[in-house]
């Protein structure tokens, strides 16, 4: 604070000179970093909201932010049990209050006991509070039919994103032709492309098959890999399941194929499974990569090196603001693991409230506990609502000429394909915008709906998409879908 005062004072009465830190001399890698989910269209949306507050007249009264996977922001209620325990942890005086159920108090007490000074305000161990890591391991074992999980392989993190970037930091190395190549799907969640750009890793894109409901074909993995070997050293394969933005839930066969491929080609597998509870389509089921790996036998389970990621931000909890998450590392070389442990220590520790919340997610009320009924009711309701909205979205979009929508099998988004008239594409180019950005910007200005253009996630050349969340409450969602339908028809007419 003192420094600022001095600098400001120094600014008086001195002629302007050029800046010290400029676009030219700053880190060149940063220029390639983009994160569309919070990119220019969102910034414009925020600006429009400001204008609305200031009384500027618009054809709409609110901006609907269907750009970000934030359930609570769209009105989804937090799960009572989770917040009860968090309240008890935050203000332990409440442990004396009879309105809190016993099972909530028990968990709060256990968490507090494990915290430094019995407070969630103390730093924790960098890897995360030990008893919580044990609970996570236990949860994984239960989920995966008894396959053992070692708490030492669990690293709690600030959301899954934190763990994903940490592992990438560990994996990316080499120079020139030996620079690490990382395989990631197109379309993908742009954290991956952003992190790879920042780390100066080589992004190896493999295309999901839009015609086959965004499924993954190992032949395509192979094609991408072999091409990449010409100019980099491919070492990592990232897969998001259920997918973001595409929502596909990989079949068990597909997961086996991917694991086989990873073993054959000596690739480290990164399995982003943050949407594991968000599975809606009939016939679809979540299979954890770890479970499948171990069920494939020791030839695979002892060899393939992998990290799986999970989070408190999605599923039925939607607790994005707490920044809770973890990763489990499998078959990592002990010396490398020691380095990983050192690397996470530089950030001190993940937020303790997020760790506490994660503990409840992996250790929810059991059938014999007082909070069970309410908890299950709330959880079921959230997931059922999402399933309903997933179907509704697919149905309605597919009635619009020019919009094709794959079934939303899981996750929280729809990624429909839009056909844009040539005139629109030309107009976009004139304005210096990518065509689907041009489309989405127009939608924002005319209808107050904020989506993210498909170009932010990657798509096949010549195709256009947008990503919309299915999170708004059903009635509002119906309205949004109708508005987009009307807009699309209008847009197509305008540029025909």
């Amino acid at each position, binding site marked *: 604070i003192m420094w600022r005062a001095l600098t400001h004072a120094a600014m008086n009465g001195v002629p302007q000179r050029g*800046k010290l830190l400029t676009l030219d001399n700053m880190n060149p890698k940063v220029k390639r970093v983009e994160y569309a989910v919070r990119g220019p269209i969102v910034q414009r949306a925020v600006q429009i909201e400001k204008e609305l507050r200031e009384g500027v007249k618009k054809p709409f009264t609110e901006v609907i932010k269907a750009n970000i996977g934030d359930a609570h922001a769209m009105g989804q209620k937090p799960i*009572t049990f989770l917040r009860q325990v968090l*309240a008890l942890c935050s203000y332990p005086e409440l442990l004396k209050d009879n309105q809190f159920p016993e099972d909530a108090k028990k968990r709060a007490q256990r968490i507090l006991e494990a915290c430094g000074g019995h*407070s969630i305000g*103390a730093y924790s161990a960098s890897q995360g509070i030990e008893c919580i890591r044990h609970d996570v391991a236990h949860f994984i074992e239960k989920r995966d039919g008894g396959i053992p999980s070692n708490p030492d392989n669990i690293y709690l993190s600030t959301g899954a994103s934190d763990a994903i970037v940490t592992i990438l930091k560990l994996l990316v190395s080499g120079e020139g032709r030996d620079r690490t190549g990382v395989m990631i799907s197109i379309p993908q969640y742009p954290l991956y492309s952003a992190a790879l750009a920042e780390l100066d890793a080589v992004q190896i894109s493999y295309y999901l098959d839009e015609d086959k409901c965004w499924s993954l074909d190992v032949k395509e993995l192979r094609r991408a890999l072999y091409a990449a070997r010409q100019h980099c050293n491919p070492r990592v394969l990232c897969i998001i399941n259920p997918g973001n933005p595409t929502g596909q839930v990989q079949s068990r066969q597909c997961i086996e194929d991917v694991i086989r491929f990873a073993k054959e080609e000596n690739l480290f597998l990164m399995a982003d499974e943050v949407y594991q509870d968000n599975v809606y389509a009939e016939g679809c089921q979540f299979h954890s990569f770890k479970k499948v790996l171990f069920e494939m036998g020791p030839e695979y389970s002892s060899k393939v090196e992998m990290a799986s990621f999970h989070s408190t931000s999605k599923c039925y909890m939607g607790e994005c603001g707490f*920044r809770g998450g973890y990763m489990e590392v499998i078959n990592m070389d002990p010396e490398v693991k020691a380095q990983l442990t050192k690397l996470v220590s*530089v950030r*001190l520790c993940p937020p*303790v*409230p997020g760790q506490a919340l994660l503990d409840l997610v992996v250790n929810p009320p059991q059938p014999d506990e007082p909070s069970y009924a309410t908890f299950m009711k709330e959880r079921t309701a959230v997931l059922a609502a999402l399933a309903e909205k997933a179907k509704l979205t697919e149905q309605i979009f597919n009635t619009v000429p020019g919009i094709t929508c794959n079934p939303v099998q899981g996750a929280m988004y729809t990624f429909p394909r839009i056909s844009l008239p040539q005139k629109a594409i030309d107009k976009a180019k004139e304005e210096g915008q990518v065509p689907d950005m041009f489309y989405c910007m127009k939608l924002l200005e005319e209808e107050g709906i904020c989506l993210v253009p498909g170009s932010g996630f990657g798509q096949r050349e010549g195709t256009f998409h947008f990503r919309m969340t299915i999170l708004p409450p059903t009635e509002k969602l119906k309205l949004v879908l109708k508005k987009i339908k009307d807009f699309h028809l209008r847009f197509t007419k305008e540029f025909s």
Partner: protein
Amino acid sequence: MKKPYKEIIDLSWGDLQRAGVKPLSFVRQVICDSFPFIFFVEEQHMQVLAFSSELTPHSFSDVCLQNCIRKSFVSSGSYTATAGIPEIVHRVAEFITRQDGGIPSHPENIYISAGSQRALTNIVTILMNRKASPRTGILTPVPCYNIATLSMMAQGATVVPYYLNQEHSWELQIEELHRALESAQRVCNPVALYVINPGNPTGHVQSRKSMQEVIHFVSERSLFLLADEIDVYQDCFNGEKTEFVLMEMGPPLSDTVELASFHSASKGFMGECGLRDGYVELVNLDHTVMKYIYVLFSKDSSAPVLGQFALDLMANPPQPGDPSYPLYNVEMQNIRTTVADNAKRAVEVVNNMLGFCCQPVEGGAFAFPQLHLPPKAIEKAEEMGMKPDTYYCTRLYEESGVLVRPGSEYGQKEGTYHIRYIFQLTGLSCPFHINEHICNKLNCTVTSFHFTPFIFLFSRFCIATSADIMEELLKRLSIFHTQFMEDFS
């Protein structure tokens, strides 16, 4: 397992709550207030505050959080705007403005992050050029808490040390900055100067003059200034040399000094380290560069909401007249007094122990006593394959259950460099318990100077704890130390 103690005293972290200081009631009440409780699971879900009135004599409704929730905040479970909940960012800017005697702080220059380290990492990312040759360099103080330097090294920066001056209470001296920069320019491309004020772990509060000199320095040498002020105790200054005077006018300087100032609610009396709440204020940066800084922060989504609340409350605590003020005030005063008393007591006791010397603690949460180990102890440490201060701290922990941090973790001058180091003592009254033999030699020419290579070793311990724990610590330390020095005499 039998040990001569029942409990470990862990004062190795800068973590008040771990050390036994209770969180402020007000802060935690506000946090709870943000949770809606749904107790009725019929058709109508009602949001009910779950607290019975006996438990909470103070109304929750006076909290400034209410203002915050109305506008842009939806739920503690939501992501927020990248830089933080806008109302909170504004209030932090207002807080900074007040602290700086009215010099305006702009909200668009502030980013709240999950701990100040994350913000520091993002700013260092902007400064780095991995492919550049020579490599990007950053001048950092010695001693320095190692998290910061490790983080910079992990990003590929060359860390160039400048030594703080122990004889002058760990002051930063401009000649040393010049020297460090000269030496740096041979091996890397220095782009930034990292300063910590108050010092961590030294506790030294930079004088205004020193800070002016540093501003001149970075301006002349075209360096970016990284000011780590996370250990700022807003109104807790122990010792006489406190000089947090807000300046209206400084010496004429160019307006190109570009600065990132880091702060946190982890420190100070709130001590909410576990909530992970920090922020950076960016001054004079190029607009285009700022756009890229936004992108870097945006891929982390946003800082934890509870941490943002803690920051807001640090910037806007209860005021006289608010229902929560009486309890808040009592709790704050309690902590303040305890820490000040602890500081005095620690320095007093430690300075009375043979071989120990402790600079007065002026700011920050730590005491940083130096310790002269007898040669026999140093030999024993070498035998065991440990640095001497690590050996001491390890034995202290094993035998007394007291956990403090050895100074070698922070960097210090090597024993072999002592000729020049001691040379600086000439003419000054020696504050150390250095033996007579060496003191006499100080009057001779340096070339004929021989001295027993005592290695000056340091440990760090957190003084922000309860008075009882501090007494217990000092007692155990005294007993252990007396025995240790006897064993190795």
